[in-house]
């Protein structure tokens, strides 16, 4: 067999985790009615700050924290510009991505190629040795389980708590939420910062745990795929999990097919995650009724309280 299904499943889970982390953050941002197209920029900043922290401190935990802080700081620029200075969200998000790509390359000069501290798996070796399900379910580091827990937490908060209800209200109609006395701007800024921290964490996972190296522009569009995943999931946290595993699976599979040299052009395999994302987006968006029902109604609209 060309591709070993068990190692593919393991790789799939690892590859999809950064997508999942970035996408769950963006889902919360979009649920509050804000479209932040700067995911790619926040991810790469998280990747570089996380990597630098890992090199300097030798601690994986501190590296993840540094990645979160990096993404959070970058997203705070977006929060101030779009919420306080009422700038166009699409343009500001693009600026965030361009700035993040440049700044990360600048920060990363002289880093890269340093061996990373090992990321330990949390389950004992005995459990990992169980055939088939052992490596798939138990053979991972803590961050992978945390990512799934984060999805569960976001789902719970959005659907079962008052805070989640307020957040969704702000995203559906900022005018109504404002009239009810909710602080639209403050809630949205917090959501943006949460999204930034998630994207930063996702980047740090990519550089510190998965690739274990810093390479310029290493996110290679993962931030954009995360944005597409939110649409794919129709703004529902659990569907995000399916989407992320689907895309992670394609990415992991195409790498293995390239290694196996089965005669499919490399360009086609390289492009396959992007092509399939486009294809799925087209299929999802063609279903008008479902999309209109789930997209936050105030998504991307500027809120300016007249009174």
């Amino acid at each position, binding site marked *: 067999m060309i591709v070993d299904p068990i190692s593919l499943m393991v790789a799939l889970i690892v590859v999809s985790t950064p997508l999942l982390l970035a996408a769950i953050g963006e889902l919360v941002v979009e649920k509050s009615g804000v479209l932040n197209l700067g995911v790619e920029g926040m991810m790469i900043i998280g990747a570089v700050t996380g990597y630098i922290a890992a090199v300097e401190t030798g601690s994986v935990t501190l590296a993840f924290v540094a990645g979160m802080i990096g993404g959070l700081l970058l997203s705070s620029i977006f929060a101030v510009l779009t919420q306080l*200075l009422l700038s166009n969200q699409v343009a500001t998000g693009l600026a965030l991505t361009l700035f993040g790509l*440049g700044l990360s390359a600048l920060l990363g000069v002289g880093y890269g190629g340093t061996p990373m501290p090992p990321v330990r798996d949390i389950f004992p070796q005995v459990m990992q040795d169980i055939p088939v399900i052992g490596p798939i379910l138990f053979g991972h580091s803590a961050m992978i389980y945390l990512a799934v827990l984060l999805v569960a937490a976001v789902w719970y908060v959005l659907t079962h708590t008052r805070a989640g209800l307020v957040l969704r209200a702000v995203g559906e109609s900022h005018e109504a939420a404002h009239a009810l006395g909710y602080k639209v701007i403050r809630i949205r800024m917090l959501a943006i910062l949460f999204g930034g921290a998630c994207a930063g964490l996702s980047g740090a996972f990519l550089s510190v745990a998965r690739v274990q190296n810093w390479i310029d522009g290493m996110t290679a569009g993962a931030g954009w795929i995360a944005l597409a995943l939110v649409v794919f999931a129709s703004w529902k946290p659990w569907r995000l999990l399916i989407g992320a595993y689907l895309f992670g699976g394609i990415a992991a599979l195409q790498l293995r097919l390239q290694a196996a040299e089965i005669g499919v052009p490399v360009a086609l395999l390289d492009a396959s995650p992007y092509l399939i994302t486009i294809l799925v987006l087209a299929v999802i968006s063609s279903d008008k009724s479902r999309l209109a029902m789930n997209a936050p109604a105030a998504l991307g609209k500027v809120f300016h309280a007249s009174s």
Partner: protein
Amino acid sequence: MIRLEKRPTPSRAWNIGAPILAVVLTMIAGGVMFALLGQDPVEAIRVIFWDPLFHERFAAFSRPQLLVKAGPLILIAIGLALGFRAGIWNIGAEGQYIMGALFGAAFGLALYPSESPLIFPAMVIAGALGGWAWAMIPAILKTRFRTNEILVSLLLVYVAEAILASAATGWLRNPEGMGFPGSRDLARHPGTDNPEVIAGTGMHWGVITAFIAVIAAYVLLNRHVLGYQIKLAGQAPRAARFAGVNPGRLVILCLGISGVLAGMAGLFEVSGPAGQITIDFNVGYGFTAIIVAFLGRLHPIGILLAGLLMALTYIGGELAQLMLGVPASAIQAFQGMLLFFLLALDVLANYRIKRAREVVA
């Protein structure tokens, strides 16, 4: 407390003043950034903004580069600005640029070694078609399935880069290149080259096309019904629909025009300054053009000026790399910062800042 009050119409003075102030603020913030990098900030700013034009040794080389770099930026930004005005966000110009270069170069190389003077014009048309075809993918998905054009156009950049890599290492590789990646040198072969029209100025056919595009866009926006529809659709989509503007047609047109212009820019670059198809002949003009479009207020004349300014920062960045050892990526962060300041200052054009009196609710 400070309060913002919406202006009935955007302030004219701030519309022009904001970009200038943004450039000044970027210079200050950039100075701080260079100081943090251990450089003398005044020196760094001088190298970036002054030396490319007036340095006694380098200026003779770098002055023509101004037009070489501004040409593609302006050409792409003009197309993007039309869409941005209508609320159609093509941010994948980089991909259309690559596909234009590939289509045009492939056409020229297919006829190699012919030196007919008809080849270059035909290559330009092929390049335009390549960019157009690549832009039609998001356009058709948008009009048929309402797929978000931002994501599709951007994701197609990565697909285009994969195709570029396969072309440079495979189907367009120079058969006499001893196995090295990269196509035949288009710029050194009569018939497929895009020479300087006026020697020593950097003015090649792409720059001339960019100037024509500026004028055409100006006429389109101010004198033509399509320009009116573009502006109307951007400012009041509902009103536009009642006025009989067909939104689908606008998407096809705006994405099509920006694809054609980006594709031509790619072809002019690959047959002139870049010279050949290589794995990384594209240097991000498609993305920088987004900054140019905004810095120029989505206005043709503004884009012309913004393109020249942005070209200056490119050349200045190269000089700073050479003379001060500043990393190449610093200039990218610098350009991003410029866009931030500009977006922040937009608030002054659209809103009045008032000190709010305490109101008892």
